[in-house]
């Protein structure tokens, strides 16, 4: 220690070397940081902030909380009141709030918020707010005379839950639960849809990933082993659909596969199927899988190709010369080396397939509906919170898969190109 401090290394101009080095390094670091700053800002602005905002949306909605100050106060003071028979003070607070909503034009906002969990309440709020300023005590009888619906226990439960800005209700709705008169319960057989669609979305994406892999593997291998001149021609064939508009490709599949389409016409002309017995390959799950597989195939071929191209052919030759059969060579030598490409392609295709939206909407028919179609429905119908909750559940599922993938295969083995 003592020697080190006495024989301090210095630069030519007499500064301590350590210090000079630190300054030089920090300058380089700053420059490096400045270089990636645009990307960081871009990711922050277009990715992290919107996703954070969306996640916040899924647990936050102040539409009712800020429209009904009197009720919020009353709910806070009277936790666990009798939902089946709220007292007069509760109705008095409600009428006061309805009057407030009418003057402040908040009826639609608060009604919409309650409507998310108790359907049919927007018009109830509108009619109630219009009548509120003329109502006299006792408010309970007066309001129930306007509409007896105001006595529904489910409505009072909904209002109590909505009186807080933060809520988990959207996740409850998104997992097929309904707010009934006795609290949250599992939805009836005729109404359950979201969990089923989540399951179906993952199943369909899995099927598409497997089909993509089976189709892409030989193509990528061929691309990798062909001489450059011929492989680039083949590569163009792979990339050509990649450069074509998604909608054009989807509608082309419709023209090809529909019942009066080219494929069926051809089969009928050849006499393979009868004219009244045409194959239904469009507007159902088959159509969805065919069209989505085609759209996503390049995402599997490209990572596979980039991995296969650098596998030295001498390994396989060595295996063969040591007496391995061709199957063993493939299984023990070639396949393990393509694993990073398989993993990357599968992950890419699967994640893209899970969020796919246009193709299932156009060619899916009755059973081709996936969860993204319902997310889109709620976005356009202004229930952004439910859409956000569904999207957050989808995101969580993907992150879980990603974590599993990291545990099983290792993310450092991922190779995209």
């Amino acid at each position, binding site marked *: 220690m003592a020697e080190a401090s006495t024989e301090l290394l210095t630069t030519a101009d007499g500064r301590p070397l350590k210090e000079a080095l630190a300054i030089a390094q920090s300058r380089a670091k700053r420059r490096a940081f400045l270089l990636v700053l645009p990307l960081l800002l871009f990711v922050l602005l277009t990715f992290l902030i919107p996703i954070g905002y969306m996640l916040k949306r899924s647990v936050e909605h102040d539409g009712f909380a800020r429209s009904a100050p009197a009720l919020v106060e009353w709910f806070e003071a009277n936790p666990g009141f009798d939902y089946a028979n709220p007292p007069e003070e509760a109705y008095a607070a409600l009428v006061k709030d309805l009057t407030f909503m009418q003057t402040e*034009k*908040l*009826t*639609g*906002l608060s*009604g*919409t918020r309650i*409507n*998310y969990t108790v*359907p*049919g*309440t*927007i*018009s109830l709020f*509108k009619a109630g707010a219009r009548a509120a300023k003329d109502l006299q005590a006792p408010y309970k009888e007066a309001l129930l005379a306007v509409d007896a619906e105001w006595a529904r226990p489910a409505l009072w439960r909904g209002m109590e839950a909505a009186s807080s800005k933060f809520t988990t209700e959207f996740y409850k709705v998104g997992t097929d639960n309904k707010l009934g008169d006795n609290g949250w319960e599992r939805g009836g057989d*005729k*109404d*359950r*849809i979201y969990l*089923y*669609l989540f399951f*179906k979305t993952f199943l369909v994406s899995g099927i598409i990933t497997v089909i993509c892999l089976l189709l892409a593997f030989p193509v990528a291998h061929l691309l990798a082993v062909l001489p450059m001149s011929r492989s680039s021609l083949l590569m163009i064939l792979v990339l050509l659909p990649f450069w074509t508009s998604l909608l054009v490709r989807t509608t082309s599949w419709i023209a090809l596969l*529909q*019942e*009066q*389409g080219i494929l069926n016409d051809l089969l009928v002309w050849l006499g393979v199927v009868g004219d009244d017995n045409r194959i239904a390959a469009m*507007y159902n799950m088959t159509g969805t899988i065919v069209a989505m597989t085609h759209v996503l195939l390049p995402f599997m071929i490209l990572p596979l190709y980039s991995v296969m191209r650098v596998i030295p052919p001498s390994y396989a030759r060595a295996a063969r010369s040591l007496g391995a059969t061709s199957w063993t060579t493939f299984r023990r030598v070639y396949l393990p080396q393509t694993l990073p490409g398989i993993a990357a392609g599968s992950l890419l295709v699967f994640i893209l397939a899970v969020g796919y939206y246009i193709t299932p*909407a*156009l060619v899916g*028919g*009755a*059973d081709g*509906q996936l969860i993204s179609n*319902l997310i889109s*429905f*709620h*976005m*356009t*119908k*202004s*229930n952004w919170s*439910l859409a956000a909750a569904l999207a957050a559940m989808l995101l969580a599922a993907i992150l879980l898969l990603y974590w599993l993938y990291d545990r099983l295969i290792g993310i450092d083995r991922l190779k995209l190109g």
Partner: protein
Amino acid sequence: MKKLLVLTTALTSLAFAANADVTVMSWGGAYGEAQTEAHVKPWAAATGNAAVMVDSDNPAPALKAMVEAGNVTVDVASVEYADAVRLCDEGVLEPIDPATVKPGADGTAAVDDFFPGAITECGVATDIWANVFAYDTTKFPEGPKTVADFFDLTKFPGKRGLRKGAKAVLELALLGDGVAPADVYATLGTPEGVDRAFAKLDTIKSEVVWWEAGAQAPQLLADGEVAMTTAYNGRIFGAAVGEGKPFQIVWDGQIYESELYVVPKGAPNKDLAMDFISYATSTEGLRAQASNISYGAPRKSSNIEPIIYKDGKTDMAPHSPTNPANMANSLLTSSDFWVDHDAELNERFQAWLSQ
């Protein structure tokens, strides 16, 4: 007096002309084109302001997003009736002073001249469009006549095209099941009524091809994929009159609703937007739109003289949802009902689809 008015309008518009650039957002396609030709271009020419049309798949969610983000770039938008009511309730739209809506060309006050409900708190109707069903005349020489025929697979065999969604489909099912138009929403408001609608749909479920985009319906019909399909009447008109396809609309059981011009809160040129709406919803403005596309003009004074299509020979009356002969058995979409039940019934609809 009139001269003075024209002069002052011209002067004020000149004063604004320097930086005004009114942006109108509509649905694109034939509809957006009709509004561009009938309203945007003539208004810009008449007032000296610049005006542009931008397209959207559905302007309503776009408006909501803009207002919530506090970055409104649109001055006027064309939205569906239910959306106009809902967005108005949510405080996304500017209220429109009914006094700015011009009286009819014959001097009738606007409130009396417009069809009931066509002037709302935040919007003024531009046209009335309908969900109808249509068939290919070469497939059925003796074609379907009533809404019940749509569900009659023995008399009219073949696939059916239906829009994938609860709205207008459930109503059609009840109308097809013999429910009177006046009772449709009361029936649909009860669990038994909803069951009844789905039971009716069950009878044709195996034969249905579901469509999603408006352009798909005439395409399905043209490809022979379906024997008959529901569609927006303007799309069938476009294919039949515009492209000469042998399509016939069945007006029995039509479900109509109106489309409105609205102004989002915080529109950059609010006053000019109001002036644009006033111009576009005048007797002549609505006639001009109705001569470009087969949607009905929602004020009486626009319908006195026959409206001729832009091809110069086709009388629009038989093709318009508001033609009395076409309205014999018709249903006005209840925006109140759908504002309340859209999410709930759509969940049920999706669950039914996947069963």
